[in-house]
């Protein structure tokens, strides 16, 4: 090994180790920032090491790309509001997928397609996963920021067509392994993979977004991994495995929290199930809704010793996290115990609610997972549901016909009283009726969550004891 290669490979080795150490530090909030710094140092070492690569003859495009990327990346990192986190993550999967796919195409171009079987298969998978991640994430981004319809888009024979496209992609990759020089098949694979990304995300609704984002995360990692095999670059393999593994683990956590099967998640065949089940549950809308005023809700708070807040996507939409924190702080000052119950799939991505509440300065030791808090509902005076729907739907426990039956949900109905903040009685995204909203213990306060909570804070402040 010549000194140059040795230097580069050592840089990659150090980077790989630092990435894993950084991830380890991410297991606790106290050390997490140190972990990010470790990984950033690792990245710097890897990039500086690469600049010594003997193949590099021209610096203009490298510098241009680095400058342009930094110019776009800095504002994206510093300016994007926390409420837009899911969109931001989807967008970065999109960039990641595109970068890897283009490296694969460039690798094919520079060898004129003359790659041996091992490198061709790796390049094929690289382009396939990269392209699927690119268009899939673009679709997810569009759905999340509202530029595409958020409801599942379906058409006849959808699953068959998507399945055939997927099989064709695999077949084309196989063909390329045997006949690596075939330019038409290679670009055909690229184009079909782009289309497949669109097809996979098209039928997926907003409530299923957490799973999709995790899956796309996983695909992006697999793409990077494949590119490591294609370019014989171990740091790409290690990092791709970490990224792909992380996305996969998160997808499993999400699927478990939604009671979806492994295959259901892996092949992305969701969305359609929920849509089909819409009419399966009825009756709830006929029952009486106990609509209440802010004052009535505040009276409940005044005499409560313990309160659990259950936030959902509605809190993010209403940007109510700061108001929620204010209400929590106000209640705590009065001696009430306030805790937050965070469902794994609340919001549009894993950990979405935690980040929003952390942004609003809610201390993280007040945030509790499903398993940690679910047994405490029965001993709680008031549950405040802020824009959550499916994760508090008792149908998941009681009605086998419901599309969410079997999904672990919060035992809100076991508390002494429930206050639900909701815009209107329209069913949630999945179109499923929610019996909690017509439960005798439940008080519905309609209106914008942020405004309602601010009014509650005001009433508590004036009302004294």
């Amino acid at each position, binding site marked *: 090994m010549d000194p140059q290669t040795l230097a580069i490979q050592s840089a990659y080795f150090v*980077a790989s180790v630092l990435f894993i150490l950084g*991830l380890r530090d991410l297991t606790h909030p106290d050390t*997490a920032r140190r972990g990010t710094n470790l990984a950033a140092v690792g990245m710097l070492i890897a990039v500086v090491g690469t600049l010594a690569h003997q193949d590099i003859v021209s610096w203009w495009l490298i510098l241009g790309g680095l400058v342009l990327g930094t110019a776009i*990346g800095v504002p994206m990192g510093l300016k994007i509001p926390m409420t837009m*986190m899911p969109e931001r993550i989807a967008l970065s999967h999109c960039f990641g997928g595109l970068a*890897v796919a283009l490296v694969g195409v460039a690798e094919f171009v520079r060898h004129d397609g003359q790659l041996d079987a091992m490198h061709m298969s790796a390049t094929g998978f690289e382009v396939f996963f990269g392209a699927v991640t690119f268009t899939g994430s673009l679709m997810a981004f569009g759905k999340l920021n509202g530029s595409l319809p958020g409801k599942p888009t379906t058409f006849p024979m959808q699953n068959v067509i998507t399945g055939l496209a997927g099989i064709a992609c695999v077949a084309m990759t196989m063909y390329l392994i045997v006949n690596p020089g075939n330019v038409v098949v290679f670009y055909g694979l690229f184009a079909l993979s782009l289309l497949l990304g669109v097809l996979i995300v098209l039928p997926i609704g907003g409530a299923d977004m957490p799973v999709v984002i995790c899956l796309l995360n996983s695909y992006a990692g697999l793409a990077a991994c494949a590119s490591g095999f294609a370019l014989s670059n171990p740091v790409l393999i290690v990092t791709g495995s970490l990224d792909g*593994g992380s996305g996969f683990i998160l997808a499993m956590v999400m699927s478990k929290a939604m009671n979806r099967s492994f295959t259901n998640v892996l092949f992305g065949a969701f969305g359609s199930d929920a849509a089909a089940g819409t009419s399966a549950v009825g009756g709830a809308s006929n029952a009486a809704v106990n609509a209440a005023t802010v004052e009535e809700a505040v009276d409940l708070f005044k005499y409560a010793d313990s309160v659990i807040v259950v936030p959902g996507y509605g809190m993010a939409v209403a940007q109510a996290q700061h108001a929620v924190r204010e209400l929590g702080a106000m209640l705590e000052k009065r001696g009430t115990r306030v805790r937050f119950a965070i469902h*794994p799939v609340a919001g549009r991505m894993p950990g979405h609610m935690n980040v929003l509440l952390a942004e609003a300065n809610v201390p993280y030791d007040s945030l509790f997972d499903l398993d940690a808090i679910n047994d405490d509902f029965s001993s709680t005076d008031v549950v405040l549901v802020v824009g959550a729907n499916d994760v508090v739907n008792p149908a998941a426990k009681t009605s086998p016909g419901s599309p969410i039956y079997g999904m672990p949900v919060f035992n809100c109905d076991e508390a002494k009283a429930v206050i639900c903040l909701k815009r209107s009685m329209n069913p949630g995204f999945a179109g499923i009726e929610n019996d909690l909203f017509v439960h005798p213990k439940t008080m519905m306060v309609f209106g914008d969550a942020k405004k309602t909570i601010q009014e509650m804070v005001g009433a508590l402040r004036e009302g004294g004891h």
Partner: protein
Amino acid sequence: MNYLLILASGPPPVPLPTSAMNDDVLFYFYIFALALFAGYVVISKVPALLHTPLMAFTNAIAGISLVASIVMAGGDYGPTANWLGFVAVTCATINVVGGFLITDRMLKMFRKKGGEQ
């Protein structure tokens, strides 16, 4: 390998992989498998509290494809490969720079009751 070659019609258009090549492949699969295990052990310990920063973090480190993009953009590989590399460098840099910044920005916000982080 042989099986695939039998499937191929006509003479193989590429040189046959040497045995050294095959050793390399196996070596990379070792790395792949070990990294998957290490990743699994570490990542499954990340609490749900930090799942969004985890995604932002892995996004940022997956920007490591920057190192491949850089060589593609600056190597003597012809203009097509170079320009594709340029776009890849741009995209990967966005992820690296933006990813680390936003991860740190998020993590800064997580604090315990009454105290600093």
